[in-house]
């Protein structure tokens, strides 16, 4: 049975609190390695690091305000069945969902992983974050300040005129908790403390006492959920109104160069070698000239529409809404709302929520006797 426990912070320093929690996990042998966001570049940004013990815990922050990669991809690199080495992986809910989808795709194993999930208030674009903390002059103080704000449920960071705004995917994310983690850390509505949710046996092993989550935590959770769901639905409505024909799709993709950054960033784009990166899509010049003959005017590089329509088709059922596609696009194409809107329609139709239930089969790997198109 899962229980809650509260880790009290001395001097309001949540970073020290989580650090000593991770220390305990190492010391009690719960984990042998830890994959966790850690500050680099004097705190101007954070990156995932894989560390082997308590000596390397300086500057870790599981509530990282930036997300360089969907770490499900990293977790899949360290998950193996044949080992007794346990790897703790600190993951945001969209990363846990992606990891579960990867397990279903036979591209990840959970056997030796201890999933340390967090309740997530959202993340910022890396470049904007770096600029903000650079200008502040004190990176860690700024990080602390912003995190306290967003985890207290302040909505300012979703407003047009905010100095920095949450990534567009985070703004409309209403699945910012995940109950399938082995351990969950939360600072949502927790003031300076950290709420931890874990199996009672593990709590006993770590010497943690069961406690009730404070009402402020539940309030922030609920308010955030409502606000986000509303924003999400409105974003989908707005998108639906705008999409009237193929031209609207072309509008969105007008500046795409088929650089494949979005595909590389997407945790769900599962093919080892993408069809679009094969010879088929680097045809010999004579063929391209023939196409131009046929069309009169040929959009170059070619096949942008085919690429995105196909990618949309292949990921729609499993898109976890992490928005890494959009964050990776040098052109700033609004891929998050595009992919999530299509994902939303497809998932509703299939009655499938990706990354929730590991025992539920992938929609494309199964079928029902009776179903309508």
């Amino acid at each position, binding site marked *: 049975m899962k229980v809650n426990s509260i880790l009290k912070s001395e001097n309001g320093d949540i970073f020290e609190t989580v650090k000593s929690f991770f220390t305990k996990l190492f010391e009690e042998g719960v984990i042998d390695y830890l994959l966790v966001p850690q500050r680099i570049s004097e705190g101007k940004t954070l990156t995932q690091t894989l560390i082997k013990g308590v000596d390397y815990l300086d500057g870790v922050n599981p509530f990282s305000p930036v997300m360089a990669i969907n770490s499900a991809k990293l977790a899949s690199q360290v998950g193996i069945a044949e080992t007794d080495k346990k790897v703790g992986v600190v993951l945001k809910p969209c990363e846990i969902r992606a990891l579960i989808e990867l397990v279903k795709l036979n591209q990840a194993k959970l056997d030796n992983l201890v999933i340390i999930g967090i309740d997530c208030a959202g993340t*910022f*674009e890396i470049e*904007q974050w770096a600029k903000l903390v650079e200008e502040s002059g004190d990176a860690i103080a700024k990080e602390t300040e912003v995190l306290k704000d967003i985890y207290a449920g302040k909505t300012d960071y979703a407003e047009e005129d905010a100095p*920095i*705004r949450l*990534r*567009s995917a985070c*703004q409309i994310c209403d699945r910012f908790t995940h109950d399938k983690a082995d351990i969950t850390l939360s600072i949502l509505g927790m003031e300076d403390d950290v709420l931890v949710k874990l199996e009672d046996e593990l709590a006993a092993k770590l010497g943690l006492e069961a406690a009730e989550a404070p009402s402020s935590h539940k309030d922030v959770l609920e308010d955030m959920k409502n606000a986000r769901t509303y924003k999400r639905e409105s974003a989908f409505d707005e998108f*639906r109104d*705008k*999409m*009237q*024909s*193929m*031209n*609207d*799709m*072309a*509008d*969105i993709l*007008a*500046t795409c160069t088929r650089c494949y950054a979005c595909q590389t960033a997407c945790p769900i784009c599962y093919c080892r070698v993408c*069809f679009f990166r094969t010879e088929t899509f680097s045809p010999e010049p004579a063929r391209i000239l023939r196409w131009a003959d046929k*069309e*009169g*005017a*040929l*959009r170059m590089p070619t096949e942008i*529409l*085919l690429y995105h*329509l*196909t990618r*949309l*088709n292949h990921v*729609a*059922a499993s898109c976890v809404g992490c928005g890494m596609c*959009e*964050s990776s*696009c040098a*052109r*700033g*194409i*609004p891929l*998050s*709302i595009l992919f999530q*809107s*299509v994902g*939303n*329609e*497809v998932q*509703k*139709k*299939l009655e499938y929520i990706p990354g929730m239930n590991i025992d539920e089969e992938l*929609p*494309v790997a*199964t*079928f029902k*006797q009776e*179903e309508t*198109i």
Partner: protein
Amino acid sequence: MSNQIDKDNFEPKIVAFLCHWCSYKAADLAGTSRLAYPTNVRTIRTMCSGSVDPVYIIKALLDGADGVLVGGCVLGDCHYQSGNYKARRKMIILHAQLRALGIDEDRVWLRWISASDGVMFRDVIFEMVEALKAKGPNPMKNPWDIWKSAKGGWKPKTINSPRGE
């Protein structure tokens, strides 16, 4: 160009992906039984309806087809047990996707036509030609027109993407 064609003289092009074991045989049977059907259809034989990845359907639509037909065995009769059930799943996803994008999904049909049913094959082609004539030419088939007439009204900046700001 295509938008100037008047609807009465418009002859839709249909690309039909037909499974080797049933629908393709039905098309063959329609031929050998001398059942007359419109010449608007180009058939492509596949081993199973389940093997038709939507990429081929989308490619056909972007490259000039006005409609795409995927034909498979009657449910329960797929040579590979469940290929046609999976084809149906793929079609569910494709249709929902096209709907979400404001693209007409009714240009893509899925039909179960058994090997002995040349008559049904003929009827489906007649029916599809009629339906596509009513719709007119597929707006997806002139790629350059699509790009050019993109309204430019929805630039990355205007969607609430912090990237564009």
